[in-house]
């Protein structure tokens, strides 16, 4: 179980490869996901991600621990960036490893659903004209109910 909260970019390919290499033996399935800065209508110039140092790491670690109790995971990884990001840059990734793919897929979705609404990050979007905080979506809160 690993949690990394960082301003620096990460190498998604290398992270996925390293994670899969470490999972060899115990796991037969690895699921990875990465989130990137989406430019909805071509006007986004950048995004700034604020977080709550200390609570962020605690919340992510708790979410990972919860996933471990629900599924037979060999390993899991969460990397989440903060600070200024440009459109197309990677914001975050999760990876899960399990004996079989069903657990790896379900745990990866669980990690994503929870870190969207329960990890203390806030996104601010910038355009040439103005800037605004991204509002939390009701669908994201609803997504937690399925677990």
């Amino acid at each position, binding site marked *: 179980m690993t949690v990394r909260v960082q301003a620096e970019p990460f190498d998604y390919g290398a992270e996925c490869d390293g994670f899969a290499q470490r999972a060899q033996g115990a796991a037969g399935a690895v699921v990875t996901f990465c989130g990137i800065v989406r430019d909805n209508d071509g006007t986004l110039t950048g995004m700034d991600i604020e977080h709550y140092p200390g609570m962020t790491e605690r919340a992510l670690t708790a979410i990972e621990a919860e996933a471990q109790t629900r599924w037979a995971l060999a390993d899991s990884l969460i990397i989440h960036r903060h600070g200024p990001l440009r459109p197309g840059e990677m914001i*975050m990734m999760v990876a899960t490893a399990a004996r079989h793919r069903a657990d790896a897929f379900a745990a990866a979705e669980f990690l994503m659903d929870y870190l969207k609404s329960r990890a203390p990050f806030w996104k601010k979007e910038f355009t040439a004209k103005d800037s605004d*905080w991204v509002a939390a979506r009701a669908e994201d809160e609803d997504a937690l109910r399925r677990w």
Partner: protein
Amino acid sequence: MTLTVLYFAWVRERIGVPRENVTTTAETVRDLIAELSAREERYALAFSDLASLRVAIDQELSDFDAPLGSAREVAFFPPMTGG
């Protein structure tokens, strides 16, 4: 007691500081909000709609009726938008 109070995202922008020490006799989060809101307009504005706010006590998500007890750190912020 003296608490460290933290603000994030638009709550921070409305109040104008990321953190401050607050000496208070508030027993619950709701009491603390009432106390701050009575102090200055910028607090009243930031706390005007509690449905759009979340609170953490000592870095754990909590609710507005939670007792402050021996809390050291209280944070106010909008619903989170990670991922």
